[in-house]
């Protein structure tokens, strides 16, 4: 049936095109980012980016040092991940090993719901509810801090970490658990000494994917971290993340200016970091035959 084969070929081609669109788009984004960013490397020079002050709008001298932005993103991301790990991993253990079928049926949709809340809504909740709470709880002068942002981001990372960890835990062969129980280990011992260690690579990948989600998050952090570009490791201080900087400044920046190009460099760094985190996480998942 040559006619049928021809038709099948066309359909195959169409499907291939659809499937490779995302690859093409990623490549185009990379090309575009570099095209817009490169003139900065020529004129003010990349040394300008390696500074400690981010003052893009100034009557004196503009400074485009992105170190405070990188430390800001790093601080918020690490804190958020640290907060999200216990909730995400313990939650996953509970869901897959302890919870009864009915409990799972109730819990799972809510976790998925949490993943679906728009970040601007979470951000607004953070600004109105969480920031005043953080302020009074820690006796600070303002609740707009890295910690507030990290708490919100943890809320967003938990569903990711939980659902992928759960898959990893469920993928542990039943024979491991059976052997452990047969040797006289209690249920709790089996979970913590056998199941979780066996699922650890998958759990680590889950945590990294959660981190990838957190580092790229924009709206919620922009609303609650105060966005002051200072270099600090203190969770009670205000920080400015890379994402918030791009979102806040790209809208009104003069096209082709140094400021515009510096923002593209921030975008490139952000893209490389998220790309690296996701790549490593996918590798780990693939190596241990898990699918996210």
């Amino acid at each position, binding site marked *: 049936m040559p006619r049928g084969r021809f038709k099948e070929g066309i359909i195959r081609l169409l499907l291939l095109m659809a499937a490779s669109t995302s690859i093409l*788009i*990623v490549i*185009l*984004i990379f090309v*575009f*980012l570099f095209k817009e960013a490169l003139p900065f490397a020529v004129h003010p020079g990349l040394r300008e980016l390696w500074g400690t*002050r*981010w*003052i*893009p*709008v*100034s*009557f*004196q001298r503009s400074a485009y040092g992105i170190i*405070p932005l990188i430390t800001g993103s790093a601080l918020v991301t690490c804190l958020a991940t640290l907060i999200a790990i216990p909730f995400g991993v313990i939650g996953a253990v509970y869901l897959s090993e302890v919870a009864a079928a009915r409990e799972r049926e109730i819990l799972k949709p809510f976790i998925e719901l949490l993943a679906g809340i728009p*970040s601007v809504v979470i951000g607004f909740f953070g*600004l*109105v509810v969480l*920031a*005043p709470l953080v*302020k009074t709880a820690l006796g600070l*002068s*303002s*609740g*707009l801090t890295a910690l507030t942002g990290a708490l919100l981001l943890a809320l967003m990372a938990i569903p990711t970490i939980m659902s992928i960890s759960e898959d990893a835990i469920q993928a542990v062969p039943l024979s491991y658990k059976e052997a452990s129980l047969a040797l006289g280990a209690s249920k709790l011992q089996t979970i913590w000494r056998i199941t979780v260690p066996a699922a650890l690579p998958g759990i680590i990948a889950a945590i990294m994917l959660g981190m*990838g*989600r957190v580092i*790229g*998050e*924009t709206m919620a952090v*922009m*609303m609650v971290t*105060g*966005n*002051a*570009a*200072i270099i600090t490791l203190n969770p009670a201080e*205000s920080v*400015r993340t890379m*994402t*918030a900087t791009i*979102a*806040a*400044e*790209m*809208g*009104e*920046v*003069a*096209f082709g200016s140094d400021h515009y190009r510096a923002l593209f460099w921030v*975008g490139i760094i952000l893209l490389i970091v*998220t790309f690296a985190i*996701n790549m490593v996480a996918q590798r780990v998942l693939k190596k241990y035959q898990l699918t996210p």
Partner: protein
Amino acid sequence: MIQQKMFHPALLILAFGVWGLACQKPSETSKPKSGGDAKPAQAAGKVMMIKGSDTMVHLVTAWAEVFMKKHPDVQIAVTGGGSGTGIAALINGQTDLCAASREINEKEKKDAEAKGIHPTEFSVARDGIAVVVNPKNPVSELTMEQVKKIYTGALTNWNQVGGPDAAITVLSRESSSGTYVFFQEHVLEKADYSPKVRLMPATSAIIQETAANASAIGYVGLGYAAEAGDKIKMVKIKAKEDAPAVTPSEETVKAGTYPIARALYLYANGQPTGVCKEFLDFCTSPEGEKIVRENGYVTVK
């Protein structure tokens, strides 16, 4: 993740659209001119260009949208770039109207006359910035110098300006805001903001934080401050140490006694006619004034 990737191209496509508009339109209208009175609007049919102040872009766009609804045959292209850019475009005959948040200066006037352009000034709105604090804060007046020192980081505690012993939480708009630049120019006298200043993504966020935080100070457009009512407190401002403290209000901004205020202008070439005149009349009509208030500015009259 997916959201983040979507964010870049969508924004950039939008950005390119605006850029394309900005680049393309003037070339359509900037053709050689013999007489000084040639007006691009009449010549190019009914496409009107308004270029200039970034602060005024939102206001002028709001006017233009309503005006175009009422006159479906008229198209208005509004672009920013800054007051200086707008005035230069007017001098070069590349725009019909120029939006400026300052008066045209002597040099620009001379340049314009040399090219046979006669910039005519229309005061269309006023912009007053209120300095706001939490209602619980006992400080109710500050000098311009004190506000400057608070924002540049020289003063960090409320007890340095007659308040309680509490660290000041300084709030500002993002650097993309026209208000940020205006405040920097007029209050900070072009000094840099302290890096510790918290930059808020929106005026509403400044009001929200000031209302919730007893040690906060922020600045917002007068319209927004008035709308927030007693959630926040507007500080009286003294231009100098021995000057009277002025409450920011529509009256004091109009009278010119409140120091953190400025007039917003539209400039035309000569006495405007046709669509330009209609648009200028619209801006100061009751309907236009309503738009002025809705955007947080103060009307002229």
